[in-house]
């Protein structure tokens, strides 16, 4: 079965410090990978998604970046954190299916446990 890991679980960082959050998926290959941010009491904001190694789509221009150095590894980074970067960061994966196949049509997303980031 597939599992998704995120670390760290919680993080408190000063403004201006760098950030690196990691997400790994087990039990599947060539997944779609996603980074979301959720502000307290708010909805899900898609930050980045990736359909393959080195292929990153950025949804929101800001001081964050993402990389996918390996098939099942997705990293979210920042060189200098802002107060507004605080939130709950969620990584998710979905099947990289072909059109007409179950993964291609349905694309259910499965979330990791999340990282709660507080920027002070």
């Amino acid at each position, binding site marked *: 079965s597939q599992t998704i890991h995120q670390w760290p679980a919680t993080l408190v960082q000063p403004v201006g410090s760098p950030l690196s959050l990691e997400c790994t998926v087990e039990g599947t290959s060539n997944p779609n990978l996603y980074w979301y941010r959720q502000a307290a009491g708010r909805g*899900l904001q898609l930050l980045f998604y990736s359909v393959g190694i080195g292929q990153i789509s950025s949804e929101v221009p800001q001081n964050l970046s993402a990389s996918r150095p390996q098939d099942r590894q997705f990293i979210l980074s920042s060189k200098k954190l802002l107060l507004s970067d605080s939130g709950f960061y969620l990584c998710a994966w979905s099947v990289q299916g072909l059109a007409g196949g179950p993964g291609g049509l*349905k694309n259910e*997303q499965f979330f990791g446990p999340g990282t709660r980031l507080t920027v002070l």
Partner: protein
Amino acid sequence: QQPVQSPQAVILREGEDAVINCSSSKALYSVHWYRQKHGEAPVFLMILLKGGEQKGHDKISASFNEKKQQSSLYLTASQLSYSGTYFCGTAYAGNNRKLIWGLGTSLAVNP
């Protein structure tokens, strides 16, 4: 393009029913429903593809009205465990990998 969820919040007594709606101004390819409990990650409930299908999972079911570009989530005989925030995620033709999320409906089930 963001789907509109209604109502924003619902308070139920155990055993009561609720309906949560998710509407789009653009033609939908699929609608996903998730439930998130406080402090936890969202959990996938079900997905509906265009075609007007209806799906069920225990006492939670959903429908997809292609004409209205709307999906409804039905919770019947609610249980305490149903409490949480329900999100719909919508996908559109051309890029079904990416979901656009509603702002959520907060559901509280009281004894």
